[in-house]
């Protein structure tokens, strides 16, 4: 897949190729401290909570009796 085609690919049409970001990761890098890890985990949970707000299930009780002509 050409660079131009890849740049315009959607999430469903893109092809897996070598990722320059993933390829250069340092597998020997030190782990972060437990304190920092806890803080990061809390931030991640907050972000997930925020992003899930639009997907909260809602009651359908009011919807069922609606009449559509």
């Amino acid at each position, binding site marked *: 897949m050409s660079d131009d085609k890849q740049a315009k690919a959607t999430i469903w049409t*893109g092809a*897996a190729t070598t990722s320059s970001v*993933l390829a250069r990761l340092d597998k020997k890098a030190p782990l972060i401290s437990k304190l920092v890890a806890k803080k990061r985990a809390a931030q991640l949970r907050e972000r*997930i909570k925020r992003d899930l707000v*639009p997907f909260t299930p809602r009651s359908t009780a009011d919807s069922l009796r609606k*009449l*559509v002509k």
Partner: protein
Amino acid sequence: MHPAQPLRYVDFGSFKDPLVEIEREVNAPQAQYLRCYLHDLRAVTVVIEPNYFDRDYLAEFAEFYATTSAGYANICERAHYFSIKVDRALFRRAVGGNDKAIAELQEAYLGHIVLRPLPRARLGRTVVRAYPDDKGEAEGTPRVLSPQRTYEAHVAGLTLSVKGLAWQQQDSGVGSCATVALWSMLHASAFDDHHAISTTAEITKVAAAVAGTGRAFPADEGLRVEQMLEVIKRHDLAPVIIPGDVRGKFSRTRFSTLVASFVRSGYPILVNGDLDEGEGQPGGHAICIVGFRSPTRAPVPDGEVAYDDANVDIVYLHDDNLGPNARFRVVEVEDESETTIDLKPEAPAPTNGNWPTTNPTEGYGTITPTELVVAVHQELRTAPLALQKAAMDWSAWLPDILDLETKKLKVKGEAPPKTGMLVGTRLLRLRDYLDQELKTALQARPPRVLADARLQLWEKVSPMSLHIGLVRVSHDGMPMMDILFDTSDSDRHLRPTAYIAYHENVQWLLERFNAQEVGNIDLGRLVRAW
């Protein structure tokens, strides 16, 4: 007996064109819409079958029209539209088996319209092809019309095919706008030979039997949402209803991501809402969304994951007041300090000179969606909202840990790489995932990678359901991983069955996340696809 009659060949837009006749006689906006639509598809000739027995109309006739004293006929006409000049000589060559003539007619075939003998509702089953989408494809914002399927028309032994989704004008004798929207929905590509397509008359009968609001025929009472759900159940399908999240209306994210997920899965969506035509109170109205335009890829903050398709701008819908594939823009509306969305009609600019008549899309009202109703396969038990939630829950760790690890590598003077990712969901058959999705995602890799991935899924992963929930995480247009969910259990037990890692380091990042962050992400069996 109905008299035998020859096929007729008339110029598109001439006074003998059935759409021109209908517009002249009853000023139907649907005829105007179709004239504009077919004009932009560069229609040239109409071939008319004067005698055509239509399954839908025959059902309407049997249920209602046969017992009126008006003397309606039980036979229809069918008009076929072509983008080339077609005369009897060319048609005769094609019917005689001439390959060149057959190919020429098929190439130019734009679709067909059944013409009922009902003066106020002549437009029956209509299937027209979509506009070409060269620009969208080139710009990386292709139109997605997955619910479309192929329809065949047989004329004197000649088979003409067209890809689309059936639409028809509301005939208040046997149905309401909701009936027509349901009927279109049940035609979708997602369904197969096990699911018979109902006629509008059958839909009305089922709806009246389960929760009648009055007599079934004439169907001037409309349908309640609960009746729509029952109709879906009676077709051996499972109804899904999703109400709006902001005081009964929809936020953009909820509407866009769900519509995109359903349409990409091949399911059209019945949208129940309020149609505001500028006069009086908005009235209840139902339409059927059949497609949308992929939005441009939105930037995502580093370390975060965002829903793909959260900013859909354009949807394509069947509206019985207008016609098939009508283009509507998703517009944001400030509503008591909260933002909701409306669907505003916005026809594309004419591409073939001026339209031949008024385009009724201009001046048509705005629709405020309040419920999405979808018919899915019975075996598919996972709620779409649960899958959206799972997508975020099980994918947010990847950009988070990638961001952390790349920051450790920070080189002076060099901009850190972007680490935000997109996540999307779909519901699809396992066989289609193996056959098509994996192949597309691995098209740039050697064939052995595809073979290994397919065989690992077949031989190493616990048996999965017929339909799976697919969550894809993508970075900069490139798939990072797919997470597969079994959809045959309750949402309480929704857990990943397997994950396909497209890069070796995805597995390492998962181990790294579990080693140093709080929590333990288990994505099921690893399938190597690198």
